[in-house]
């Protein structure tokens, strides 16, 4: 069908394409497992890309302070999300929806509607650069290294630490978790902050690969939820796995790539994503009912 996929390079390019979504999904999973939703991640990605391009003004040295600054903004966004949810008792769906609308507005305000300037190569390094002449696999994109590294950290955090177990407990039954001595509030805060931080990282990688545009992150919040659901995560909390979510993101992108290769247009992509989404959840529910849990 396409000779590129007979070569390792083809697969490396595919992994590079999926890097941003996979990292984003793994981070969004933290909020899903804790029982909430984070719809603000896509707009945070947009803000990261627009903000960085506005601040960089073609100065290659600016990358070293822009990325930490963006991570700082991300942490503040995550913190606000959680404080609104737990202090004002606004359902996370609405709280992060409001955040999404506001952040899109901020990104527009910052750029005046049309982003000026572009990202310096030092910034685009993470999303675009390939390490050439690697034995066996040909090229090794930096995005793939980032995916492996962050994927590992997120896996460790959720599945190998006490914190990860508390996260599952909070998502499963917040009352029981509180009575068992879990600091529900700080666990939730960290989940939203982790989700926002990964959104910034995903934004850096996506911006590096795809360049600057005002709607670059739109739709990613739903794709991240889709990837988590394909990976068996339970919405409203208590169940989810980082490796399975990354695999979900890989599967989603693989299907999109396949549709592209078959020459099917964007509309079919939407239909397939919709069918997969409903099918995956219906199947998971059926399985759970069958084993009686």
């Amino acid at each position, binding site marked *: 069908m396409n000779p590129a996929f007979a070569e390792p390079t083809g697969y490396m390019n595919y992994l590079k394409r999926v890097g941003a979504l996979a990292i984003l999904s793994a981070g969004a999973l933290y909020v899903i497992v*804790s*029982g*909430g*939703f984070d719809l603000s991640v896509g707009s945070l990605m947009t803000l990261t890309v627009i903000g960085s391009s506005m601040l960089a003004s073609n100065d290659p040295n600016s990358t070293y302070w822009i990325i930490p600054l963006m991570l700082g903004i991300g942490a503040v966004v995550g913190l606000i999300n959680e404080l*609104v*949810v*737990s*202090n*004002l*008792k*606004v*359902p*996370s*769906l*609405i*709280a992060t*929806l*409001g*955040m*999404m*609308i*506001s*952040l*899109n*507005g*901020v990104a*527009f*305000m910052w750029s005046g*509607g049309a982003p000026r300037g572009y990202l310096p190569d030092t910034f685009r390094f993470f999303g675009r650069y390939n390490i050439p002449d690697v034995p066996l696999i040909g090229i090794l994109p930096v995005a793939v290294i980032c995916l492996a590294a962050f994927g590992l950290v997120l896996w460790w955090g959720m599945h190998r630490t006490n914190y990860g177990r508390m996260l599952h407990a909070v*998502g499963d039954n*917040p*009352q029981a978790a509180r009575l068992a001595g879990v600091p529900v509030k700080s666990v939730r805060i960290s989940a939203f902050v982790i989700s926002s931080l990964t959104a910034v990282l995903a934004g850096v990688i996506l911006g590096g690969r795809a360049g600057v545009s005002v709607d670059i992150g739109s739709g990613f919040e*739903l794709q991240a*939820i889709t990837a988590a*659901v394909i990976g068996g995560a339970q*919405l*409203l*909390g208590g169940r989810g796995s980082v490796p399975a979510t990354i695999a979900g993101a890989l599967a989603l992108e693989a299907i999109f790539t396949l549709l592209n290769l078959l020459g099917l*247009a*964007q*509309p*079919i*992509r*939407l*239909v*397939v*994503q*919709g*069918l*997969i*989404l*409903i099918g995956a*959840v*219906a199947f998971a*529910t*059926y399985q759970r*009912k069958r084993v009686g849990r």
Partner: protein
Amino acid sequence: MTDTSLATPRRRFRFDRNASAILLIAAVLIYLGLVLALGQTRFLTLENVIAILTRSITLGITAIGQTFAILVASIDLSVASVISAAAVVTSVVMNGNPAMMLPAIAAVLVMGAVIGLINGLVIARLEVNPLIATLGMSLIIQGILSYFYNNFAGNVPAEFQVFAYGTIGVVPYSLIFMFALAGLAWFVLRFTRFGSDIYSVGGNQDAARLAGIKTVRVVVGAHILCSLCAAIAGIYLASRLRSGAPWIGAEGVYDLESIAVVVIGGTVLAGGRGGVWGTMAGVIIFSLIDSIFNVAGVDAFVKQVLRGIIIVAAVAFYAARSQRPVA
């Protein structure tokens, strides 16, 4: 009234019941204050009040349906795509021919009912999370629609534009239609068995099932009503824009805005509490906010930021008092 009556619990002021009215009054007062402070009394005419109300008829009709979905503890994210699909089907089937008006409306209503039926069955029978089920449905509708059309398609005859542009005196038919629809929804919720079943199922599905209510039917029914309202909103939009395009629903963000309006109107996202008049108050609050921004001359992007903050603040306004944990 004596002071002692304040102490009896029977007369205690139910804050959550009245929150949407308080918000509405606050929005009206801010609007009045702003108009008077700026001396722009031309904004106080009857025509302008009607213009404010007419601005959000699409949102209003959609939100009436969304109220049913949220009351049964479900949610419908597919309304925006249904609006687009309904508008396109309306204008393509009519295609300028007045004789095709009734067939077009019938076709759109059937389409809406079928989409609602599928949504309801996937949610109630397959027990798929309603967010996911309707999100998936939304993607499917949008995909099919934009496979066939990528721009404004067909056009509606002048006779049909009366629905959006015709008036009795100064009041548009469409405004009367929206309030009539809200009245009908109120009647269904307040006086029919189906209405009380909706509140029971939304309050506690297991208890409702054990009490002998056929919960699947109630959820499916609520979703059919929700999709029907979205389809009607699409018909209205086609009449107003004189044609339909596959992006008009998504562009209006009717899915998320209708949910926000319902929640601002005091209907609880967890289901079982709320009503359609609160939703109408929420719709009017939304149009008033827009008008306030216009009168004050707020920059378009700042407007968007404030909109996001106001949605959250309005929900927080009464959610903050709730004792229940939220996620």
